[in-house]
């Protein structure tokens, strides 16, 4: 093996580029958010393609603009919605190989928001609480990438997968998001009816903490008007309803507790789509029936 440390240099970051892995769940009782890639399947796929474990640290790139220079030989994969990938200015299919000195550019995706870049060996910045993810709410993990940063890479552990064509993630023009009612659906007047009838667009004030929706205001039941809720634990996907009635869907960098009622929760398989939905996209919520065995579990007679 060579004695020179493997690394890449960030030449340009674009609007936002972050180191992300699968986050640091298990510390919410200390006030630490889970963080991690918003579109986890896309990060996991990119990692598999370059021979990494699925949870290796890669880059989450918002709206392209990222340019990297390889300082060592490595394999790179770009996943998520379709975006132009260029090596030394020439369009390439991902995954591909980079020789030392090669420059990789990831352009803006045609639809969607976030692409994921995996590099063989993974990004090997120091871990904090077991994860290398950048948590924008609490400041844990590495800082957002800046032009000129040098990112160390780990040693490759497996061979790259011999794939040369990738199907990009599909980003729909209108999003229908499933929701399981609870834990505070009883604070709302006909929660299921209101959620089903509501129409929203994705606000431009969303970020990795949460997606804000603009549209139908959700009304509280008369007996809960003006009431305060003592702060309680939040899960990723929680649909919280602040006083103005406009829902917020919490994503990976969400606070660990919150004091507004949560009308429902978006199940994990539906979260990656929320990572890719652009501001202005129409959005509806679809109430899922509670699985019968769980209804019995949860609401004892």
């Amino acid at each position, binding site marked *: 093996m060579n004695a020179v440390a493997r690394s890449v240099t960030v030449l340009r970051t674009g609007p936002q580029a972050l180191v992300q892995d699968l986050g640091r769940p298990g510390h919410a009782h200390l*006030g630490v958010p889970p963080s991690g890639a918003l579109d986890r399947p896309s990060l996991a796929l990119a990692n598999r393609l370059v021979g990494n474990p699925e949870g290796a640290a890669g880059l989450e790139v918002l709206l392209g603009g990222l340019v990297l220079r390889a300082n060592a030989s490595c394999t790179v994969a770009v996943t998520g919605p379709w975006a132009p990938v260029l090596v030394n200015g020439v369009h390439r299919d991902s995954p591909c190989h980079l020789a030392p000195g090669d420059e990789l550019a990831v352009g803006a995706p045609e639809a969607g928001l976030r692409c994921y870049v995996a590099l063989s060996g993974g990004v090997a910045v120091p871990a904090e*609480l077991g994860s290398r993810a950048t948590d924008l709410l609490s400041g844990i993990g590495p800082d957002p990438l800046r032009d000129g940063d040098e990112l160390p890479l780990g040693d490759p552990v497996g061979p790259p997968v011999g794939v040369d064509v990738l199907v990009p993630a599909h980003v729909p023009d209108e999003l229908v998001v499933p929701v399981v009612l*609870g834990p505070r659906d009883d604070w709302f007047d006909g929660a299921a009816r209101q959620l089903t009838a509501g129409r929203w667009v994705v606000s431009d004030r969303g970020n990795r903490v949460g997606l804000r929706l603009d549209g139908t205001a959700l009304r509280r039941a008369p007996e809960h008007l003006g009431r305060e809720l003592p702060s309680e634990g939040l899960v990723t996907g929680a649909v919280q309803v602040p006083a103005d009635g406009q829902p917020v869907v919490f994503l990976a960098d969400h606070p660990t*507790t919150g004091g507004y009622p949560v009308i429902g929760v978006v199940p994990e398989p539906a979260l990656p789509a929320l990572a890719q939905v652009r501001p202005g996209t129409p959005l509806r919520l679809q109430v899922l029936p509670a699985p019968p065995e769980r209804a019995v579990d949860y609401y004892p007679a």
Partner: protein
Amino acid sequence: MRLRRCGTDAVLVEVDSLDEVEAVRAAVAAAALPEVVELVPAARTVLVTTRPGGLAAVRRVLDAVDPARRAPVAAREVVIPVRYDGPDLELVASTAGVPVDEVVRLHSSARYTVAFCGFAPGFGYLVGLPEPLRQPRLDSPRTKVPAGSVGVAGEYTAAYPRATPGGWRLIGRTDAPLFDPRRAEPALLAPGDRVRFEVVA
């Protein structure tokens, strides 16, 4: 004790008091279920998040919990040194109707328990505050409370792990390392810990 559905893999356990919160939290923690991912106590609730399919095991533990009885678990003891020179010390004294010295004596002689954490990493809400020190928040929150500030609000006292906005009445300051993500145990305080404050001259 009431169980509220929270998505497909979590349950929010609602109880009537902080003592019951601690009883439920300690019982679930003592069961050490491999299915449990997060166990998050708060003021009147305990959130239990599991790996997919893990809720049945949690349900069995919850069925056996008596919220009126706290499981006998070994609690960590933490001592936090404090310089009682906070900007709201006089306000707290006058609100309590006692001299400043008495505020210091009351706050440093009480025994506290970490009820829950939240707001920021390592920010523990401590209960056990003497009655005269249970006071409202400031009318207008500070935009920046310095790291290490020790304050009171309602039935809680806390130390700020890092500089954040905050509305608590500040009575002192500590150099204790409250949160460091690079440490093996990043947070000085965790739910269930016993805490006392020690006067630094």
